[in-house]
């Protein structure tokens, strides 16, 4: 994906996340579509786009909604790096590996995020934090799935070509820049 499209996509996700996603909250929990995008960019693209956008938009997010600036950036970065490592062993085209990577990324992101906040002495209890996790993880995985279905088509050409014999590494030559 061209970088300018990626910037546009993250910007739109940021604004929608801030202004409209609360209207689709389930049990008062909205999905974190910025995180889902970070994870999918880390999973689908070889360039470290997920890490870079995760850090930049994480800082912006903290500026608007964080108690302290930089914590979302660190958690996004950790999640993106973990997903980039995990994806080396997985098939990028299939949904299940995307969900497994997504789950690992979401759990790591939430762990780092709340771990750092707990170090700063916030009053929130572990019970309160853990109670919202099942809905949050399930909702985020739903968006990871949606983003995977949308973005993977732009990543690997010829994935439906019956005569294409190469594996993913050979298909790298077709990755759209």
């Amino acid at each position, binding site marked *: 994906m061209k970088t300018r499209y990626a910037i546009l996509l993250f910007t739109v996700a940021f604004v929608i996340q801030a202004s409209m996603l609360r209207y689709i909250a389930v049990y008062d929990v909205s999905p974190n579509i910025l995180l889902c995008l970070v994870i999918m960019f880390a999973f689908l693209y070889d360039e470290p786009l997920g890490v870079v956008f995760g850090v930049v938009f994480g800082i912006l997010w903290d500026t608007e909604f964080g108690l*302290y600036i930089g*914590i979302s950036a660190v958690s996004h970065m950790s999640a993106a790096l973990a997903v980039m490592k995990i994806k080396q062993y997985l098939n990028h085209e299939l949904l299940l590996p995307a969900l497994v990577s997504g789950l690992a990324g979401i759990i790591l992101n939430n762990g780092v995020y709340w771990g750092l906040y707990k170090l700063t002495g916030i009053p929130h209890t572990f019970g309160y934090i853990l109670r919202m996790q099942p809905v949050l993880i399930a909702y985020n995985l739903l968006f990871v799935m949606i983003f995977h279905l949308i973005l993977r088509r732009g990543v690997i050409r010829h994935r439906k070509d019956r005569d294409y014999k190469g594996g993913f590494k050979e298909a790298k030559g077709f990755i759209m820049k």
Partner: protein
Amino acid sequence: MKWIRKHTGASTVIAVFAALLILVLVSYQTFGESNILGRSAGRIVGIVQTPLAGVGRFIDARFSVYLNSGDIARENEQLKARVDELERELNEARLSGADLADLEKLSEALNYADLGNDYNLVTADVIGLDNSNGFNIFTINVGSQNGVSNDSVVIDSNGLIGRVMAVNESSAKVISIIDETNKVGFQVFRNLEWLGMLNGDGDGKLTGYMLDETAAVREGDRLITSEVGGFYPAGITIGKVTSVEWNHDSPLKTVRVEPAVYFKSIRKVTVLI
């Protein structure tokens, strides 16, 4: 240096990680206050978010009836119960005119003033609210050009919400009382001499203690802000007592309080400036 040149990728990651941790530490020291970059980013985001928040409210107003019919039924039941409760309170108020006169005297004794006389009130729309984390931090569409400053008190029609924690020209970031570690001074509405201190219990509610252990506070008592603690002006509804316990470790009576404001669905607020 050799290692850095050999492992440029890992070195970059470590450097960025370290820079971010320093940023967190600096932000922690200044309690999340934005620097010039943060304020500029906030201003731009505020400009973009305002119309989209309007679109969100429009969609919500049109479709929430269909999407949330279960919630509406539940809310209807709660409202019916609330109407019954208010009718009972009204009857009690009519029957205890003398008590009311006493309360008014106490109010005067406490310099208990109408907020509108002491503060200018600025109404604001919530243009950004993140429900994907556990915090109740949100953005409103008024800022320093409207007279809002850091620590301005934010309320809505139900009661106390919190205070402004960062502000730029056209928008401000608000933190709720349940996310705060700062204490809120309160007085019991039934007897304004009963004072205490509250803070977030980390579980979406408030917890605190009475300054006078003989105060006969009970479940259902309404709490309002007092000037004890010095942060919030007196007289703003905080919430209702849900339980009262003796703390055996110290000679204090502990109260648990349900906030009057439901923080997850705030649409409009008023800022005291």
